[in-house]
């Protein structure tokens, strides 16, 4: 019975966290894109626009919900449901930290540890094509159909290099369970270089990592591969005919997919929650110093206020950051917070790269996209897999 209660609590917590994180991912994207383009982004709702996601949610919920008369109603309604459900399912196997002690109960920071965790993520991501293609088809509109077809073709093509790129770190770590993969990345070479897959011994997986990231951009329909929703050709692609909460469902699913794929990249290539250098050399103080540094900057700006309100808001935010930083020193919170800090830090860095690329690169043409997948990505991934397996076979005892 205890197992079921704990699982339900964990599931609710993870779903809530991921949905909130997806909403704030939108805020982060708008802010970062704005600063890349010398704008300020959302500022009106809350300090620095921090309440913007809430306002967006209220707006989308209260908007008029249109159903196109020509649409195939059942599949039209099924598609956004499928998209969100499949996006949320694969989080179940992703571990966010090591085994921890919470009020004397030992548990994993993970919903369930499957021995085929990596395969489950691949399976669910291969199923998520249906949400997009059904939406495009059921809307019964030319733009939506074209967007859906493009998206399906693109996702099928890029799934192959993605799976090939995933296979090579699996060969090195000899497991399909995320937890075991992270545990086998936890050592250090020469006492300070982490044994992450990108630095791993027989053959560093840096090429696999780059291939994985490129394929991930295409899998999640992001710039420079966002042909399915190229607005100057296809209005809004597969979700042209969707409005209100059904549109929000696709939007949320897209951002949850980005976060999930960043988590997977972190776990497979960047050592999950293992720190960048050993804790003997003081890596446990990194989160403390980062938060205290942020607090110091805020106190400095509070002492020289640029606006009238800054005199109060800046030191207040500074106190929050200082307290957050000091909680990393509390002995019984430390084993939970430090791994979580490294995991979230790496994942958000990758998510930032996703946004950064969106702000930097122009869109591909559709034939270029397909040619790139089949004539560069796929052979490169196969070559990487071959070299890795040869070196693993030669070095294994």
């Amino acid at each position, binding site marked *: 019975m205890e197992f079921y209660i704990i699982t339900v609590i964990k599931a609710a917590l993870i779903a809530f966290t991921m949905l909130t994180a997806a909403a704030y991912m939108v805020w982060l994207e708008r802010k970062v894109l704005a600063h890349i383009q010398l704008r300020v982004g959302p500022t009106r709702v809350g300090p620095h626009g921090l309440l913007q996601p809430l306002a967006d949610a209220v707006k989308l919920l209260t908007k008029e919900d249109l159903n196109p008369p020509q649409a195939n109603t059942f*599949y039209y309604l099924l598609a956004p449901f499928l998209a969100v459900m499949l996006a949320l399912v694969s989080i179940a196997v992703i571990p966010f930290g090591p085994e921890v002690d919470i009020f004397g109960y030992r548990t994993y920071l993970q919903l369930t540890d*499957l*021995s*085929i965790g990596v*395969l*489950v993520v*691949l*399976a*669910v991501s*291969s*199923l998520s*094509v*249906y949400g997009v*293609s*059904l939406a*495009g*088809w059921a809307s019964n509109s030319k733009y939506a*159909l074209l967007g*859906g*077809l493009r998206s*399906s*073709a693109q996702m*099928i093509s890029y*799934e192959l290099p993605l799976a090939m790129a995933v296979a090579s770190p699996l060969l090195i770590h000899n497991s*399909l369970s995320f937890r075991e993969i992270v545990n086998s990345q936890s050592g250090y070479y020469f006492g300070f270089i982490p044994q992450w897959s990108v630095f791993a011994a027989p053959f560093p997986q840096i090429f696999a990592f780059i291939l994985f990231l490129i394929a991930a951009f295409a899998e999640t329909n992001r710039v420079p591969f966002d042909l399915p929703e190229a607005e100057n050709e296809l209005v809004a692609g597969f979700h042209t005919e969707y409005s209100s909460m059904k549109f929000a469902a696709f939007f949320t699913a897209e951002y949850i997919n980005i976060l999930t794929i960043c988590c997977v990249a972190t776990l497979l290539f960047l050592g999950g929650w293992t720190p960048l250098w050993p804790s003997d050399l003081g890596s446990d103080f990194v989160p403390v110093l980062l938060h205290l540094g942020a607090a110091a900057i805020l106190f400095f700006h509070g002492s020289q206020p640029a606006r009238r309100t800054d005199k109060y808001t800046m030191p207040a935010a500074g106190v929050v950051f200082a307290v957050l930083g000091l909680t990393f020193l509390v002995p019984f919170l430390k084993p939970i917070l430090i791994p979580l800090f490294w995991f979230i830090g790496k994942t958000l860095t990758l998510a930032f790269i996703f946004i950064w690329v969106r702000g930097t690169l122009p869109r591909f043409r559709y034939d270029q996209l397909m040619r790139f997948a089949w004539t560069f990505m796929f052979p490169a991934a196969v070559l990487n897999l071959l070299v890795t397996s040869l070196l693993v076979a030669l070095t294994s005892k």
Partner: protein
Amino acid sequence: MDVILFLAFATVAVVAAINLVVQTHPISSALSLIGVMGSLAVLYLLLGGEFLAAVQLIVYAGAIMVLFVFVIMLLNAGAEQRRGKSILATLLGVPLLAGFLALVAWLIQSALPASAPVTFGAFTRGTPRDIGQLLFTQYLLPFEVTSVLILIAILGAVVLARKEI
């Protein structure tokens, strides 16, 4: 718990399979087939074939059926036209079908040797490692022959597709 899950997903599989035949629209049929494959994957998982379950989803539901759905959408196939549905066919067909199914079930029942009933969780050798070892030792020849067969099929597909260019 295992028995409840088995009954639930076995029912889903059978209902989806019947739905696959009954539906007139190709997309509905294709999606029902995906339902069959998904519930089969759950049944494999219940029997301890975890790798098989994942591969079932990746290969059948995630690759082959995506292609089916893709082609149906690309050709924009409409609903099937059904004509000449006589009452006699329905009246005779349903009892005949039931009788035929009963006959087949009885034949299979009597032809197969009696085997021990399956217990959930008894089989634990369905991990990727076990399957990989079996594929590359005991079943090496069938495995390699199948891969050559697939290679020939790929070459045939390329040759057929090139003719039109």
